[in-house]
């Protein structure tokens, strides 16, 4: 984290190599955050570009004493994801019929090929489908905690909600996710 703060300082002094290093260090994490939230690789790619553009423009506003660069960048990403979620809400309402199809396919494939479900790539797809079934509030809490590895305090900074709310959302999100897995006939362990 300290290295990120140094890189930011070098960026602000006009060192383009430092910016390149920051981009390379965080691209994968930001892309994953966007993908887990949108479930769409193309949208995740576009949003990742938007995130870095915004970070580049507002880099001077980052203060290391207020938290880690990762947390700050996650906050920027989360704000963009919320904007994106609101923009595309209408489109998603028409997708409700499409959601039913993967559910049936999953049950069928679970009965036919149970041995292959241990493969991590498939687990990733299952998690993605399950994440889409829970509410955005709970989804983002689970993604930040269990897929991005942020601690409770960092999540509190990103979401700008009290600590009790963070704990409650993570807890309910995990329980909801476990229920969805059960309904889909999947066992992630």
């Amino acid at each position: 984290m300290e290295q990120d703060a140094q890189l930011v300082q070098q960026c602000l002094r006009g060192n383009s190599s430092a910016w390149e290093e920051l981009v390379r260090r965080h691209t994968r994490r930001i892309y994953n955050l966007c993908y887990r939230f949108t479930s769409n690789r193309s949208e995740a790619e576009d949003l990742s570009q938007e995130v870095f553009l915004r970070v580049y423009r507002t880099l001077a506003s980052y203060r290391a004493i207020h938290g880690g660069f990762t947390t700050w960048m996650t906050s920027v990403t989360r704000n963009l994801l919320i904007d994106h979620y609101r923009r595309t809400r209408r489109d998603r309402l028409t997708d409700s019929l499409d959601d039913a199809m993967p559910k049936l396919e999953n049950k069928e494939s679970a009965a036919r090929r149970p041995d292959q479900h241990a493969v991590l790539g498939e687990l990733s797809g299952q998690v993605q489908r399950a994440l889409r079934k829970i509410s955005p509030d709970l989804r983002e809490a689970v993604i930040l905690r269990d897929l991005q590895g942020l601690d409770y305090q960092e999540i509190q900074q990103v979401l700008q909600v009290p600590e009790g709310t963070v704990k409650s959302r993570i807890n309910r999100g995990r329980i909801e996710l476990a229920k969805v897995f059960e309904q889909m006939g999947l066992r992630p362990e």
Partner: protein
Amino acid sequence: MSWTCEQIEASLSEYLDGLLGEGARREFDAHANHCDRCGPLVARVSGVVSGLHRLELLEEPPQLAAIILDKTLGPKKQKLSWRSAFEWLRLLSRPRFAYSAVSIADFRPANLYRAADRQVHLVYARGSKFVADLRVVYEIQSRLRPQSEPGTGLENKKLPQNSPDNPPGMTNGPQRNQPRELNRADQLHPELSVLASALPSAYERSLP
């Protein structure tokens, strides 16, 4: 007092993340190990969480970082090196290029001699024309010089002088009794007449 099922469900994530104190953890275990409802719930959620933690980050599209850098820093300029500067020479060594070059070029001795002879004559003709032009220019200049030397008027002009009170380089301002610029149109007429008289003779001399 042992915990209720609601307490177990509310503290489940803190338990899994190791955030419960020693006493609370003991109470949690005591209830979960003997409750038909809470035991399976803890096992299911624990399985989901460990499954999520096992997931590795997906690989981003390979060109994503480059696109981001292009959008933020601008397109990357290609570095010019000696190797890239002489890259075109590599083309010459390719068999296809060498074959086509040989097929186009004519290496017969008679043609080579003819081409060289033509080049020599061309160079000689251009050189002699250049010398003749120079002679005309010098002749005109030498005719003009005796007229222009006494007519410049610069030796009679009073140049602005530095004032002793002002720092070096500063003058007393514009000289109101002197014209700011010499009217060169007045001097043009005698020079044109000399030029007109000199041109016919110079042209005749330049003819072979």
